[in-house]
């Protein structure tokens, strides 16, 4: 018997205009603006231009840039959650 009641998937996004208030709340706004934060996967500087996602791990906010390899690694992380 096929399932007929598969729930909707919830997608959680942060809108561009909310990004700075969100980073302020998380206490990383100044470091982000001053270019002190790096990508969790490739260690390159993350800026407003190349930021694609972020998550919490071991109490730290981890930023991810939009490089292909980093997006792939993020995808794998999400699939394994």
């Amino acid at each position, binding site marked *: 018997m096929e399932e007929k009641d598969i729930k909707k998937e919830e*997608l959680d996004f942060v*809108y561009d205009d909310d990004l700075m208030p969100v980073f302020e*709340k998380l206490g990383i706004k100044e470091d982000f603006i001053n270019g002190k934060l790096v990508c969790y996967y490739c260690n390159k500087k993350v800026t407003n231009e190349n*930021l694609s996602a972020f998550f919490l791990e071991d109490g730290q906010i981890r930023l991810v840039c939009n490089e*292909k390899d980093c997006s792939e690694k993020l995808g794998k992380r999400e*699939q394994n959650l």
Partner: protein
Amino acid sequence: MTISEFISSYVFPVVQWGGWGLFGALLWYVFKHGEKVDKWISRFNGFLMWLGINREKKYVAGDIRWRINSASKKINKEAEGIVTKGVDIVWVDQENVESFLRSGKVMIRMRHHSNQDRNISTAVMHYVKTGVLHTGKIYLPDKIKEALNLSLTKKILSEESDKGTSLEYFCSNELDPLLKNDKEIEKQFSTIELMEYKGLLTRILLREIRALGKKIYPKRPNDEILKETQSFFNFLEPFANHRGGDNDIKEWQFLDKNIQIGILYVAKQTKLDCEGLNPYVKQIDKKIKSGCKKIYVFGRRGNNVVAIKELLRLIEDQITNIKINREYYSEIRGEKVPAICATISIKD
């Protein structure tokens, strides 16, 4: 009947109840086609974006939502339950970000509406990775999983892209560079595209991946399972590459620990004319006896579609769980022809 009698008997009730009827019909339409209503609301918000950021967010979210929901609906018509019944989009801001992060979620950045093709492409990729067949895909080898994600993203974007601009963005910025850099993913992707073209992707591969997930999730994927799914993928490959004739497909059934299926093509007019349906009944019986838990029966062109329906009527007394999936159209040498896929499930 006088004019006044006609008016009081027919016109008054229609006028009196017609409004409610129209309202009821409207409600029914909204209930059945929520994604279309979403599309128009999103477009309306698009016109009113100058009113401020909230309107712009509504437009971006609505535009993504109706595209995914509409495509999901179409895919689920091909094979029910393959994808979720669409998506809900939640905006994370300074008020709720901490609770979302604590629950382990990844926050994806959405850009201004001027980058909407990029937003749609990002959202669909994210949705496919996390929300489509999540419990089954973990048992696939990495390269097949990657190729399948790309193919599903392309399928969703192809289903609902007005001018094809988000699909174009995805192909030139995500898909093509990835396929160019990874020959193994490119090979698997090409096979999956052929499966899609032949109607095997949603009707067999995704269905079986889903069934596998339902059967063994949350067991950790081990070498044995990954080997089985790789073999299953290899088993389907000749069907994807099949160009007619008898000799290119050697194995018509796949029997392993978790997946046990058989495939049957009803395709030979001469066989049907000379021997009728008897050989097909025997083949189904043989597959059941050899351990197939599911048999997929395919046919293309009107006469074969009719033959399959007749075949199922013949065996329905012996096998209770037969499902004829929604009929579709397939292409044979550029000609669009009706096609059918029936699933026979055998209970233990």
